[in-house]
């Protein structure tokens, strides 16, 4: 009988179901094992000192964050001079209105989209679909979850939870592809299907992996080439990016492109990295005739304002923390039910979407710190999770059984004599528990030691 938000209950229910789903567990373990092998090989092969690289990257990102207002203004100035129309959106709704206005202005009937967690965050597809715009995800993983009517499972590999057979069946049902479970054939089917979309779309929508302030440019990192096509074929390009994506100068890409690739997939560098500085220039053969960048706040300034949490904005969205997290591995990405799952998601979501309904994510962690160890920009994620837990407690969002329970625990455990006094009672309770509780829970109850450390020490001293 735990009170708490509906989101909290949904999370617990979904977590229980997923944790018991062994098929799911096997798939995720396989994916993460492959990832770990690739990434450790990648780190060693490319960086002569990975720890040093992390330190440098953290410093660069934190310095950029410290100067964020100035860098954003520089970005706007340079981008505008490049022919980009820069728009600022305080929240998801404003961003959606801006993008709708752009779509209407240009008479957009069909759009193609490369992978962007920011568009997930504001639920762009749904809004555009309601407007009557045919919108296609072009990243293979995103296409798969779009066809399946699901959310992305992971911020880097959206269809990590689907087997080849499942995808084959899905493509057969939705695209009319002959039934197959060959990854080659399925990829070829997606390629053929999306070619038509690329060539006939009026609008290409992307996120931005980085925004370069001094150049007024958007940087896109990918392997498939779908972002290249999304920004090369349609007449209009809209890039939507969180305000924290800023890097000062082009030179910083020398570090950050390899860093992101290595942490994200174990590659030295991803297949296609594009620096896009505006619409087609005079003298150029092709490219969009109009380009827009939407700078999205949507709660990021709230994170920025909190000195204890602001470093979470240095995240480069590599997904390493998700893969390292034992909780993520067990419950999977969908359980979090939010655009950003996993450790970093559990830090930023409660702040961006409201502590009242999302603080439970901060408790979806054993605070093991594996996430912080792998983070390429040295974000100390588990410290921020603790911070969120504390804020939730201070705001009285924690449930009264939880509050009372902890008060009791603190009262007893901070008084050694009281603890000693209550030991026999606790021992009795511990022995009775398996008889009273449901079997599964009873089995897991820790057994009290026969003697406390104090008692053992006293005996030893005598």
């Amino acid at each position, binding site marked *: 009988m735990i009170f708490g938000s509906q989101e909290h209950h949904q999370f617990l229910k979904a977590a229980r179901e997923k944790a018991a789903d062994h098929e799911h567990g096997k798939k995720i373990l*396989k994916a993460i094992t492959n*990832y770990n092998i690739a990434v450790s090989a990648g780190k060693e092969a490319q*960086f*002569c000192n990975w720890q040093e690289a992390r330190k440098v990257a953290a410093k660069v990102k934190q310095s950029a964050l*410290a*100067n964020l207002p100035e860098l954003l*203004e520089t970005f706007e100035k340079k981008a505008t001079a*490049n022919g980009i129309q820069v728009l*600022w*959106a*305080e929240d998801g709704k*404003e961003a959606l209105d801006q993008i709708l206005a752009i779509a209407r202005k240009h008479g957009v009937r069909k759009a193609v989209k490369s992978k962007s967690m920011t568009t997930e965050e504001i639920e762009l597809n749904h809004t555009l679909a309601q407007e009557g715009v045919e919108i296609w995800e072009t990243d*293979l993983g995103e296409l*798969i979850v779009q066809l399946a009517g699901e959310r992305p499972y992971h911020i880097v*590999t959206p269809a990590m939870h*689907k087997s*080849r057979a499942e995808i084959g069946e899905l493509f057969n049902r939705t695209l009319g592809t002959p039934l197959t479970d060959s*990854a*080659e054939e399925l*990829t*070829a089917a997606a390629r053929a299907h999306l*070619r038509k979309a*690329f*060539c006939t779309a009026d609008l290409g929508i992307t996120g931005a992996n980085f925004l370069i302030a*001094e*150049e007024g440019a958007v940087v896109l990192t990918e*392997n*498939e*080439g*779908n972002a*290249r096509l999304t920004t*090369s074929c349609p007449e209009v390009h809209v890039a939507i990016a969180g*305000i924290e994506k800023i890097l000062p100068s*082009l*030179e910083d*890409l*020398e570090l950050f*492109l*390899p860093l992101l690739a290595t942490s994200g997939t174990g*590659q030295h*560098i*991803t*297949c*296609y*990295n*594009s620096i*896009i*500085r505006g*619409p087609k*220039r005079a*003298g*150029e*053969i*092709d*490219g969009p005739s109009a380009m827009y960048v939407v700078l999205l*706040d949507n709660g990021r*300034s709230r994170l*920025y*304002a909190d*000195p204890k949490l602001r470093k979470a904005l240095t995240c480069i969205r590599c997904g390493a923390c998700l893969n390292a997290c034992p909780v993520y591995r067990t419950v999977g990405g969908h359980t979090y039910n939010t655009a950003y799952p996993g450790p970093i998601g559990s830090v930023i979501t409660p702040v961006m979407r409201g502590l009242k309904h999302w603080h439970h994510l901060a408790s979806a962690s054993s605070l093991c710190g594996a996430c912080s160890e792998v983070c390429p920009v040295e974000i100390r994620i588990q410290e921020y999770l603790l911070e969120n837990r504390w804020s939730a407690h201070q705001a009285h969002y924690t449930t009264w059984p939880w509050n009372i329970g902890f008060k009791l625990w603190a009262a007893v455990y901070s008084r050694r004599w009281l603890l000693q006094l209550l030991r026999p009672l606790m021992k009795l309770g511990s022995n009775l528990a398996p008889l009273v509780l449901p079997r599964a829970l009873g089995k897991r109850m820790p057994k009290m030691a026969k003697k406390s450390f104090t008692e053992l020490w006293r005996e030893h001293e005598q």
Partner: protein
Amino acid sequence: MSSKEKILDRLRKATGFERGPRLEKVPYSTLFCHGRLTRDALGERFKTAFQGLIGELHEVAGWEQAAEKLLELLNKEAGPVICQDHPLLARLAELNPGLQQRFRFAVNLRSSSEECGHAAVGISVADALMGRTGSILLRSATAGGRRLSVLSPFHIVVAAKDQIIPALHPWLEQIGGDDSWSMAAIISGPSRTADIEKILVFGAHGPKRLALILIG
């Protein structure tokens, strides 16, 4: 107050930062294993890395051989080519009548994307070659536009050995000062995906094959 002003206002009100002068620039190349190589070693490193990315490397001694090699590759492909309008490629065509013939029936770069997509091969030059990672560096203004290097299933790049540079830095500096381009690209191997059960498949949306004719 506009949204821009509100957002910037909130950011500026945040305290506890050490705002001010930017960090001193760290030479990023010191962080990489192959960040500091001799010229020869860099050349070898490029070749190894490029081929490691499943790029097809064709080393030739000079221009005639390059033209021959290009024709040899094209003769294995049935469909039309799409080719950048560049003096270097024009020179190759002059040296080889077979090549000239192929170029004559090239798809017009300014056609619709669907038209351009019918090409079997896209041919371009490059700004530079990144030694450390085996990457091709190019700009839309000087490499035949944005679509050329990504639409056709086979992309062939013609470049010279002396275009190999040790890091991104010199190229980034060069392009930063140039106004002609709207898109600059770093291409590292043919298109690929591992979204299906982490199985590596080539030719997801971009070219399935990437070849480099390296002169010198």
